[in-house]
């Protein structure tokens, strides 16, 4: 019930304090003498050339995409796994069908070469 979530709620609030406190402490304890060279972007000691917020290849998007789809799949399967005792063999098979339909998509991605790097 809500009592269980009270702990999580307090944890969210207090849990943020734990990392913030040392950072603030570091601010007071450490020296603070900024200069333009120190505050420059660090790229192996070379002068920075151009904007760093550049464009990336679509590969990264494909992986995140497959991850999203499988995440949703797992959210569907968790209740199925929890209710396993109440399910007959038919319901079990329908859950497996669910998985197999999604495997099709994985096979497509594989065949298409979308899971290769570079």
């Amino acid at each position, binding site marked *: 019930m809500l009592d269980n979530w009270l*702990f999580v709620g307090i944890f969210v609030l207090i849990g943020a304090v734990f990392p913030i406190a040392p950072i603030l*402490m*570091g601010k007071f304890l*450490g020296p603070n003498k900024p200069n333009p060279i120190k505050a420059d972007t660090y790229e192996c000691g070379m002068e920075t050339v151009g904007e*760093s917020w550049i464009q990336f290849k679509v590969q990264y998007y494909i992986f995140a995409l497959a991850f999203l789809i499988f995440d949703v799949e797992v959210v569907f399967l968790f209740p199925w796994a929890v209710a396993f005792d109440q399910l007959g063999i038919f319901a*079990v098979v329908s859950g497996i069908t669910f998985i197999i339909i999604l*495997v099709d998509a994985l096979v497509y991605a594989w065949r298409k070469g979308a899971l290769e790097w570079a």
Partner: protein
Amino acid sequence: MDFLTNPVDAIREWLLGLMANMPAPWPDVIVNLLGVVVVASFGLGLVIILVWVERKVAARFQDRFGPNRVGPYGLFQTVADILKLFTKEDTTPDNADKPVYNLAPILSLFSVLLIWAVIPFSKDWLGTDLNVGVLYIVAVGSLGALAVLMAGWSSNNKFALLGAFRTVAQLVSYEVPLVISILIPVLLARSMGVHAIVDAQDTFFGMFFFMAPIAAVIFFISSIAEVGRTPFDLLEAESEIVAGFHIEYSGAKFAMIFAGEFLHAFTIAVLTATLFFGGWRGPGAEAYPILGWVYFMAKSLGVYLIVSWIRSTLPRIRIDHMLSFNWKYLTPLALATLIVTALLTKILEGQAVWYQSLVMFLSNVVLFLIANEIVKWRESKKPGRQVVGQPRPVARPPAEPAAEAEA
């Protein structure tokens, strides 16, 4: 309540007794608050010892002594390191997106710390028993990927952003087999509550490691990838992208990212021990909760030592190998294991536990052998790469100009 055998419950009772005449929600809130502080400080305090353990173990593997100057066996070396980190200057690059830059290390430790809210340390010693505990762990863990992306983007540094992108590609990829392998203990325990999963492993052969060895190994491997440890430490490959997403961080903020990584490494050991090795379960743990805590820590440290062992033994994997290992081996294998486990669980319903374990263990072994054969067959069909027979560039010292330069 006996204080010696069950200190946590004894203190809880005593506190509730002290606050008996307060208005309704407050005693609960205060006890919860103290619980949060205790759990979170326990996690963070553990980091100090873990760093020492890690360095000692790595040193032994490399035939060194490791830290041995500060305090007995060098135990206070980490404390000295932390003090040093705090007194370092905390720089922020001029080009950074400052609010996001400052938020990222906080979120990175926060996401790991939140997992500890549902970890059962012993019988009745747990933060809270959510009935969606396992999914909660997955959810909170996925905040880490966001923290990495925030750190990389806000630093306004090519290496940081590249490192962040690589890291996130790795994290999200390995999250897929991770969540599928988590589904298997949930299916075996018929519950998503972490406490209920531990309760379901009440005999030695009932430990889910025996029922689902493949799931345990997949969970372990993909958790290591989630933490970004060797052999999956491409995200901080110094030779390629300097230090990855946290290149611009220094001082206390770097310490937070670092602490988050170490705590996460121990958290995966804890989760492996809890989900697959029965957590606090052991002889006598029911009667004496403190014994359960000892078992819990022993199992977790055992798994953690394996993590350190792997770290100091294996070399780094190339990124394309890493991703194809995930998508073309771990994910299909995890899905196949899930299907087989679901069918067998239904078929074996009501049988003795050791019998169930035996059949499932054997089915897992068979599955693993089949997967291995398929991989071998696929490898044999690939055209082999020709290495010999082609002239390769050889570095030779230039003959004439070098001699002149010397003279």
